[in-house]
């Protein structure tokens, strides 16, 4: 709260300074040319009309509905692919990748933590709608609506199987990314998901060399490893996985009873098909129980350790905030540790604000990073232990099934299932008989 108040004081001081500066700047009185002179207008071309945003929203909803229908009812990979290409063209190349639900995480966070920020309703809708759809119909959004998923899906030519341990370990990166994005957005430091969006430079056909290299290497990896960004990095995917675990309906490999033919086993490039568990005698599972108990005991310790670790990174983290960087620079200049000045410090001195105010602001931001670090570190500890616990819990499974959370509903496995093919044939027969 004090942080906000100091901000508003800063604005008042700034405004007062500006008015004085503007008065002082009027060095040459504007001439009076008389009635014949037509003074040119300062043009102000308006921003995109609101219906533009509403069109995006309408396309998003339509695409989500169609994706849900295709993955649950129609079950035709070709149509899913077509919808995916449409989304790639529309949300990617035409709308140039902004606004997207992944980035909207940060708008939501900033709006929750900074009451002066008014979130655009489109960003809010883009965040909420795919989550709500996933909660009912599974990850149709990932399959065919998200342009970031689509651009990786079209380059997936030669999928290799990622070992399970590596897949599970890499999956934790997304949680770290999400936690960092929330921390930096909540403190008003940066929108890192947008700054490091790997594919936006492809959508815009321009961008910095770093982003092109990052995006390019992800696409290169994506030829062999299915959708590396979606599976291992996407912070929105963390939320979607959670929603998908709870979803009411979801895409299945077989439309009816699994016949255990194993034909689908190798069709999933994302490692999202669970195979039937072997029959294990109870005695073999005793070590699992011991491990589970140990993990539960360790949980608070690991959470505390995580909080301790991340909160101690507050100093480097807080440098993501422009005010902290500026305060450090001003401090160096004030104490004579550096001779020259930079654009930032010149601009600060031009405002005439006392450095103490800036230092105080920087300290308050640093404190926010310490608090946020504890919370997020504990969260990451919980995630790691949660993952280990899930690996220790034995769950009997008798059929080949799409994984509740990891299945991206792309529909690649449908055509491999003989039961699915038989269903299609039956339908054909029925239609011919009717005719």
């Amino acid at each position, binding site marked *: 709260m004090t942080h906000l108040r100091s901000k508003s004081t800063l604005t008042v001081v700034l405004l007062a300074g500006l008015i004085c500066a503007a008065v002082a700047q009027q060095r040459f009185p504007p001439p009076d040319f008389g009635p014949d002179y037509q003074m040119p207008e300062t043009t102000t071309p308006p921003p995109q009309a609101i219906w533009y945003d509403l069109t995006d929203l309408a396309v998003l909803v339509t695409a989500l509905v169609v994706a849900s229908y295709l993955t649950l009812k129609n079950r035709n990979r070709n149509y899913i692919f077509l919808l995916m290409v449409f989304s790639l063209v529309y949300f990617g190349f035409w709308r140039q990748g902004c606004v997207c639900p992944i980035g909207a995480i940060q708008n939501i966070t900033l*709006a929750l933590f900074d009451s002066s920020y*008014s979130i655009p309703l489109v960003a809010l809708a883009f965040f909420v709608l795919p989550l709500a759809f996933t909660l009912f119909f599974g990850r149709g959004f990932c399959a065919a609506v998200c342009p970031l998923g689509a651009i990786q899906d079209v380059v997936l030519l030669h999928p290799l199987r990622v070992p399970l341990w590596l897949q599970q370990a890499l999956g934790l990166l997304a949680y770290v990314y999400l936690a960092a994005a929330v921390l930096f957005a909540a403190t008003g430091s940066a929108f890192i998901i947008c700054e490091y969006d790997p594919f936006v430079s492809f959508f815009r056909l321009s961008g910095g060399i770093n982003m092109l290299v990052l995006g390019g290497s992800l696409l290169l990896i994506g030829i062999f490893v299915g959708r590396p960004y979606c599976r291992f990095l996407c912070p929105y995917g963390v939320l979607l996985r959670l929603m998908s675990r709870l979803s009411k309906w979801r895409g299945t490999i077989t439309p009816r009873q699994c016949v255990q033919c194993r034909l689908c086993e190798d069709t999933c490039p994302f490692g999202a098909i669970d195979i039937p568990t072997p029959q294990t005698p109870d005695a073999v599972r005793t070590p699992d129980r011991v491990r589970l108990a140990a993990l539960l005991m360790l949980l608070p310790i690991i959470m505390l350790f995580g909080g301790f670790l991340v909160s101690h990174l507050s100093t480097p983290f807080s440098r993501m905030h422009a005010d902290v960087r500026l305060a450090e620079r001003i401090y160096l200049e004030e104490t004579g540790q550096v001779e020259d000045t930079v654009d930032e410090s010149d601009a600060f001195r031009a405002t005439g604000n006392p450095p103490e105010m800036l230092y105080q602001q920087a300290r308050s931001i640093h404190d926010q990073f310490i608090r946020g670090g504890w919370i997020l570190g504990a969260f990451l500890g919980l995630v790691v232990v949660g993952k280990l616990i899930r690996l220790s819990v034995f769950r009997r499974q008798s059929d080949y099934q799409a994984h509740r959370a990891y299945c991206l509903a792309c529909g690649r496995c449908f055509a491999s299932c003989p039961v699915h093919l038989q269903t299609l044939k039956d339908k054909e027969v029925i239609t011919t008989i009717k005719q």
Partner: protein
Amino acid sequence: MAQEQIDSKEISRRDLLQGGLRNLCLLGVGGAAGLLIGRSRAQATVWQIDPYTCISCGNCASYCVMEESAVKCVHAFAMCGYCDLCTGFLEPEPDAINKGAENELCPTGAIKREFVEDPYYQYTIDEKLCNGCGKCVKGCNAFGNGSLFLQVRHDRCLNCNQCSIAAACPSQSFRRVPADQPYIIKEAYHAG
């Protein structure tokens, strides 16, 4: 799958838990959305430069995600002194006060100088040529009335969620403004 269908009339413990959690999630997402809608002024925002704090460092020309920056120089004619020796138009020590390219400050020749009446000249910006480097702005602010200034042109701006120029702006002059007041046009303050 079929097994589930057969048993579907009986609600298993897992189904019950999942259903409960699902409703909880819906409530959470919906609640957060409702809270934010309540707080939101239901208004889209766009990025704009505060011309009063802008130090015309030149980052606008190079940090925009577009090949040609969405930031351009604009002219508040009501503030302009129509100077013959315009420090926004001319190099600091020009060979002559005329339109010669060697005397012009603008690297792309985007400023048009037209005679109005002795000794006054009118300066207009050709936006197609302007690259938003802000050299003229710096010159005009240093010795003139400061009537030249940089603005995000919304017919060009993609309105990125995080403006890349804003992230690189040394004076933190970029901010989100309501979309129905998308420009901050400098105004003359007459002292008397």
